[in-house]
């Protein structure tokens, strides 16, 4: 049976763990807020951008043969861009995402298509590095530090291998922030771009376009990829922090429960020891008197 000192030591250890998990919970909460602020700022840019693209597609629907919209007849190589986390301790955040990607790769293989990966985040990188997959590019140790310029560089690389014919289709895997308690691994087609269906009604005001709408649109569409990728990266970051907050909250609660159980055990053991000592004393006294 555990001695009093063992139990005491164990309680101390659990308490230390608890203060760490509690601190990590608070750090994640602070990071979550700052990422959300970043997201808000970016939204005013991306929403305006989308609004303009929408209006342009109303005026000048881009033809199907435009290379970024064209669905290729034969799809051999599929590019998967995986946005994960650098660090763990965030519940099933990474493993949910990885499972989703694995399932997708299995589907591709059964159709005889080849998967090419671009990975953001150390955790998914470590996983796929040990597997039989073709990793084209990896970005490790940067999650949380990715700014728009970097997202643009990643998107440009992805786009240029699509244009050169190295890849035929591109999908992005990221985790959607549904709510504080729900984050969903999600997949979205990145290239070819799904043409926006022009919104009905509100036939727009007479604009002067310089150059022609079609040319503006062809200039804006590739750039819209940067925006899409960057917003997915930000969303994944928010989801990661939310997942970590929850994981750390659970851990803190578990510590609390454990401390309660251990304290109970400690008290019981102490009581047992006192009772035993009393019995000894009483027994000894009885023995003496009996003489």
């Amino acid at each position: 049976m555990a001695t009093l000192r063992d139990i005491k030591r164990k309680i101390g250890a659990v308490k230390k763990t608890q203060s760490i998990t509690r601190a990590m919970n608070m750090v994640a909460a602070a990071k979550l807020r700052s990422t959300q602020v970043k997201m808000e700022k970016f939204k005013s840019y991306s929403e305006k951008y989308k609004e303009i693209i929408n209006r342009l597609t109303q005026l000048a629907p881009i033809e199907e043969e435009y290379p970024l919209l064209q669905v290729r007849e034969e799809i051999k190589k599929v590019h998967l861009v995986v946005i994960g986390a650098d660090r763990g301790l965030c519940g099933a955040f990474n493993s949910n995402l990885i499972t989703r990607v694995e399932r997708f790769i299995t589907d591709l293989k059964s159709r005889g298509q080849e998967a090419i990966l671009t990975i953001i985040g150390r955790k998914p990188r470590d996983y796929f590095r040990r597997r039989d997959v073709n990793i084209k590019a990896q970005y490790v140790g940067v999650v949380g530090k990715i700014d728009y310029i970097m997202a643009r560089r990643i998107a440009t690389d992805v786009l240029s291998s699509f244009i050169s014919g190295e890849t035929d289709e591109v999908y992005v895997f990221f985790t959607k922030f549904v709510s504080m308690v729900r984050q969903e691994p999600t997949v979205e087609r990145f290239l070819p771009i799904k043409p926006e269906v022009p919104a009905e009604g509100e036939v727009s005001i007479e604009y002067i376009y310089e150059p022609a709408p079609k040319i503006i649109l062809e200039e804006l569409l590739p750039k819209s990829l940067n925006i899409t990728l960057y917003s997915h990266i930000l969303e994944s970051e928010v989801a990661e922090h939310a997942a970590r907050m929850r994981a750390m909250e659970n851990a803190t609660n578990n510590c609390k429960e454990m401390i309660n159980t251990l304290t109970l055990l400690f008290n019981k053991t102490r009581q047992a020891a006192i009772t035993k000592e009393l019995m000894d004393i009483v027994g000894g006294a009885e023995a003496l008197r009996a003489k």
Partner: protein
Amino acid sequence: MAKILLEVITPDRLLVREEVDMVVAVATEGEFGVLPGHAALLTLLEIGEARYKKDGHIEYMAIAGGIAEVFKDRMTILTEAAELGREIDIDRAKKAAERALERLRKKEGVDIARADAALRRAVTRIKVAEKAKGA
């Protein structure tokens, strides 16, 4: 007097949001000015200088290309990067220009279009910073 509400938005911040008297920017077809009452306009912006006048004072900005929309006395500039003249670090811009020139000289294994754009951005920033100092 009527004013224009100018907004300059980049992915990481709202650089300008002000009621101004006049805006001048560089479009693909050349420099253009916007006064209150301008017709609705949508245009692509080149890498270049933009300036606006407010209460007799002129403020200069370096714009790294993008889109400008004018609609009902509102002008929105969406750009991937923009700086106010007085924020620009001239020394850094000069160094960036030198680096870009260096790359252009090498020619081999260099993305010429990218280096050229970098050079134009740096030159614009130097120009704008100097103008802002003089103003």
